[in-house]
């Protein structure tokens, strides 16, 4: 019974914790612009993150080594450092975007300008990392994130033309008036928002720190195979909401408030309150995860002690990195850089950087010295290799598309 409770909790937290500012922004922007024509990008991303997270979780459980430790061990110090530089930079930008996202959610709730919230948010994120237990953190924010289910209720309430929604999702042709480069650029953005690299750093580091055993592999798989796709459904729901409300009037989504609007239209104040709670939980937990991941990447490359389970003074370098990263992220967000634009650029870059960390994990997942008898099966290797191909294609296409579309204009 206790085990069942644990499994359920895990799945629920995975669903509630799935969305972050990247998903919220890209889903609402693309829903308004392309209706459901980019739904496939979310599906592709969900399948990808399921494969990637399962593999990384299995590797972490069996080898007791987290992602960045293995990246350096596989590709060597020099390439590993280049890899670290790219991964850290993207994690840092994501952290800034999430902090801004939390501040925006607070602005929507309070009418106090988001810039004023930013330093407080930074401090809160830091103090939770410093003092709050891992499990408590995950569970509280994961469960509050479930408030986002209100979006599904809202969609239902709006009585959308379901067949037309399905029609635009199942015919992923280029929407009228939009060129193919823009279409694919936003496809990459959605893909990158769904397959966030920091998620895997965080996930695998948690698995190592909590010393997952072979008996936990099943639990890991349940969370990943059930939780992530259901989380992906939430992303698609948000996309549908803006498709229904904004697309018919050709309104573009440029502010976070527009992502909340359809729900408040459908369900009034209660709907708005719930979705804001959901946004806050989603972005705050993502800020925690990216803040920790910023510390994980650097510490794991150099072999420093990291983690939340030890006293901070036993992992001083790790905590200094986290603190400096938070300060930097707060400063970046305070430059009043457009949070929506920052998020869009960051998810696109994240998509481009995916092969860097995916590839070494795929190799280690096949290494019997690390995995024992739990190396990838031929089937999972086949699918995982196909995904590696997809990631490489996405990676190569990103910068040209970014230039060609002038950043999705």
């Amino acid at each position, binding site marked *: 019974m206790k085990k069942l409770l644990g499994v359920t909790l895990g799945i629920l937290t995975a669903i509630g914790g799935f969305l972050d500012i990247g998903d919220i922004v890209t889903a609402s922007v693309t829903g308004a612009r392309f209706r459901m024509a980019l739904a496939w990008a979310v599906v592709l991303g969900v399948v990808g993150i399921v494969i990637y997270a399962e593999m990384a979780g299995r590797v972490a459980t069996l080898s007791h080594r987290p992602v960045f430790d293995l990246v350096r061990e*596989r*590709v*060597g110090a020099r390439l590993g450092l280049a890899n670290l530089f790219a991964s850290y930079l993207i994690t840092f930008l994501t952290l800034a975007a999430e902090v801004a996202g939390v501040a925006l959610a607070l602005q929507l709730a309070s009418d106090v300008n988001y810039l004023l919230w930013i330093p407080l948010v930074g401090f809160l994120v830091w103090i939770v990392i410093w003092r709050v237990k891992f499990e408590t953190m995950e569970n509280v924010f994961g469960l509050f994130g479930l408030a986002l289910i209100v979006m599904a209720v809202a969609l239902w309430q709006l009585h959308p033309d379901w067949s037309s929604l399905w029609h635009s999702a199942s015919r992923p042709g280029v929407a009228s008036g939009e060129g193919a480069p823009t279409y694919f650029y936003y496809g990459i953005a959605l893909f990158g928002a769904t397959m966030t690299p920091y998620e895997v750093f965080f996930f695998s580091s948690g698995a190592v720190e909590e010393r997952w055993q072979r008996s936990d592999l099943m639990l890991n798989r349940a969370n990943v195979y059930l939780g992530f796709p259901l989380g992906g459904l939430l992303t698609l729901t948000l996309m549908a909401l803006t498709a229904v409300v904004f697309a018919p009037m050709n309104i573009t989504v440029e502010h976070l408030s527009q992502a909340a609007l359809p729900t408040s239209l459908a369900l009034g104040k209660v709907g708005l309150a719930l979705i804001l709670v959901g946004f806050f939980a989603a972005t705050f937990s993502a800020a925690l995860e990216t803040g920790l991941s910023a510390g994980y990447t650097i510490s794991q490359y150099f072999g420093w002690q990291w983690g939340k389970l030890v006293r901070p003074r036993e992992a001083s370098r790790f905590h200094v990195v986290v603190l400096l990263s938070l300060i930097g992220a707060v400063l970046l967000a305070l430059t009043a850089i457009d949070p929506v634009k920052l998020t869009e650029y960051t998810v696109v870059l994240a998509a481009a950087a995916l092969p860097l960390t995916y590839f*070494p994990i*795929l*190799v280690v997942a*096949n*290494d*019997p*010295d690390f995995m024992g008898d739990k*190396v*990838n099966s*031929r089937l999972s*290797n*086949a699918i*995982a*290799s196909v995904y*590696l191909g997809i990631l490489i294609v996405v990676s190569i296409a990103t910068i040209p598309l970014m230039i060609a579309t002038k950043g999705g204009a």
Partner: protein
Amino acid sequence: MRLSELLDSEVVDCNGKRLGHVHDVQLIQDGPPLGTWGNAFRLEGLIVGPGSIGTRLGIVRPEMRGPWILKALFARRRSARVLVPWDRVREVGAERITADCVAAECQTAFTTDQASPPRG
């Protein structure tokens, strides 16, 4: 002498012909006893060949069964990889290492009865 000084150094044979670069160093545990560890790892030979990523990643080892496509991509280079025994290394220079033998005399590395790393 450090490992980093050996790795990636160019290796030429006694005729000056380029054998490649040092990808890795083969060690055998039959050296003098050290502390509480046991026998030290003696330097048995240099793994030399063209290119290097496949060796570094460990993909070309026989015990790695997949992913098929990566093994296929890196396997072409396998036959060109040789083991230069340390006793055939004449000189370790600042820029290159000179071997005492010709390419044909060196064994092909990574045969099945070679390294079996410890498990624990």
